[in-house]
């Protein structure tokens, strides 16, 4: 039988081992992400907000609580780009400083959500049996509690600090991630490549985190990006209700403080609202781009 394909001739070995690593998959990942223009736009918005949150306070060195002018000035009036709020504080500066808190709490809460959700979902889906039963009953217990109410109770029970707020949001919102991770694990654990990984002697820990997890990630990544958005909304809701640290400026707090002037000075709630909207939208677009980038089937050489 002619078998031209199975020649056992070695090609010239690469001169340098570095050559082998040149086409790192990360490059393909980045290339795929940037092919999605909406995702690039989302990333730009996100980077702008994070950049402003990080650097503006360093450069400006202002106090967002300082009353700088008359209350409820219109945007542009008195040299205030976005006007002033009910206590005469500069709205633009407040939003820039608020981005810090919003981003930090949103990110931390999403991190806690993912950590709890992934661990519980992965264990339940991978081990099945009684582990699954117990973990899913726990998950259902948390699912039937009204999340905002539970978060409010948690913040009220403990001190209203940013840490408490982030943890509370994490504790009430991990159930979706857990169920999603469990479903992915249940599907993936039966795949042949998991059997193949076992047959080369991989242990459970390796199979869960290195073999199955990367395959389970695409939907979870999208979910993570959305989770950041949801956590930001949550934080806004809590500070709107006055259940956050009153000594730090946040977007939710701005809306909450100014809600009585909604009809007289709509910009005082609109601008923080737009900030929240843009951030959540950016996270959603980023999630979309990440899905594309994570899917090796969309990559081309």
């Amino acid at each position, binding site marked *: 039988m002619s078998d031209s*394909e*199975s020649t056992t*001739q070695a090609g010239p070995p690469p001169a340098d081992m570095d050559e082998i690593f040149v086409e790192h*998959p990360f490059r393909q990942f980045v290339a795929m992400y940037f092919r999605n223009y909406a995702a690039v736009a989302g990333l730009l918005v996100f980077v702008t907000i994070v950049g402003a949150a990080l650097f503006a306070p360093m450069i400006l060195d202002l106090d967002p609580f300082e009353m700088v002018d008359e209350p409820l000035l219109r945007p542009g009036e008195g040299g205030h780009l976005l006007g002033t709020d009910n206590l005469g504080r500069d709205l633009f500066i407040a939003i820039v400083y608020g981005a810090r808190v919003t981003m930090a709490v949103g990110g931390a809460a999403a991190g806690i959500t993912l950590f709890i959700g992934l661990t519980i979902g992965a264990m339940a889906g991978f081990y099945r049996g009684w582990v699954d039963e117990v973990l899913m009953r726990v998950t259902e217990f948390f699912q039937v509690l009204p999340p905002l109410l539970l978060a409010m109770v948690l913040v009220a029970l403990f001190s209203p600090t940013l840490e408490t707020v982030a943890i509370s949001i994490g504790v009430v919102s991990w159930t979706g991630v857990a169920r999603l991770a469990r479903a992915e694990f249940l599907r993936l654990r039966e795949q*042949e*490549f998991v059997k193949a990984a*076992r*047959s*080369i002697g991989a242990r459970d820990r390796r199979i869960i985190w290195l073999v199955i997890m*990367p395959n389970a990630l695409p939907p979870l990544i999208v979910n993570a990006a959305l989770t950041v958005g949801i956590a930001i909304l949550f934080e806004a809701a809590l500070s709107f209700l006055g259940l956050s640290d009153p000594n730090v400026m946040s977007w939710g707090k701005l809306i909450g403080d100014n809600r009585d002037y909604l009809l007289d000075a709509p910009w005082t709630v609109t601008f923080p609202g737009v900030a929240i909207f843009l951030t959540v939208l950016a996270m959603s677009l980023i999630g979309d781009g990440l899905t594309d980038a994570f899917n090796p089937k969309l990559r081309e050489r």
Partner: protein
Amino acid sequence: MAKTLLSVEGLAVEFDTRDGVARVIDDLSISLAEGETLGIVGESGCGKSMTALSIMGLVPIPPGRIAAGRIFLDDEDLLQASEARMREVRGNEISMIFQEPMTSLNPVYSIGNQIAETARLHEGLSRADAFQRALEMLVAVGIPAADKRIHEFPHQMSGGMRQRVMIAMALACQPRVLIADEPTTALDVTVQAQIFDLLNDLKDRTGTAIIMITHDMGAIAEMAQRVVVMYAGRVVEQADVDQILTDPRHPYTQGLIRCVPHLTQNPTKERPPLLEIPGVVPPLTQLGSGCPFAPRCQYADAQCRAEMPPTKAIDDGHTVACWLTEREAAA
């Protein structure tokens, strides 16, 4: 004969099902010598793959259960070995390749990464050394332009190429036993032949013994030195490949051989009707006391349906479990 490398003695595997206990493997005894290729043939559901999983220590427990038997690698009983020891054995001493090359590779890692993984896991090689090993393996299994394709992902390769990658993965640590579970079932015939050649070639070079699981008598003729025919979890016939092909004794073996279509010069006139074995493998929860093949056997009589035939040696290394042979020998 060469030294025995792997032997399975009186293995029985049971599964709890809704319909009761299914004994998927019953009193299975096989042995594999160094450098030998052992073929295990049978239809779907005969316990071939379960035999492989038992040897690998990968029978899902529960619902499965090893009810009896011992599996020796050299002098070590693998069924008594700890899970940590089994992880050392898997991939390092006994490897396995699977039926579906399309799904046996992890889609998120490059193939080089996956082959290197085995070497890193068992030999603690550095990343660069493991990649070098992966490259050597890809060359050995005949992947053209291996230094380029090492970075490719599974979806960029054809089925035959992926099966080669699987073989490279399985052989990366030079295991002493390779279990090939229907390695060519999902491939084109031409590619099948290439894979057989490759396996034979690698066996000659490395001395790895192969357990070849298949339902294809043609593959057996191509690859195996010894053949075990399984039916409903039992060994019904065992012999050298020549004996099986020229002098099959068990009606089931005869049926399997007749099922292989033959090429003839003038197909339209000379082609005889292709024979089949009527019926299917019975549900393993419903086996009676008789020969499990009796309901499908054209020679079956009352004794076949009532009593299990004993395994009888009729020739050097040729054993059969059938009342027909038993009576012939008595007469």
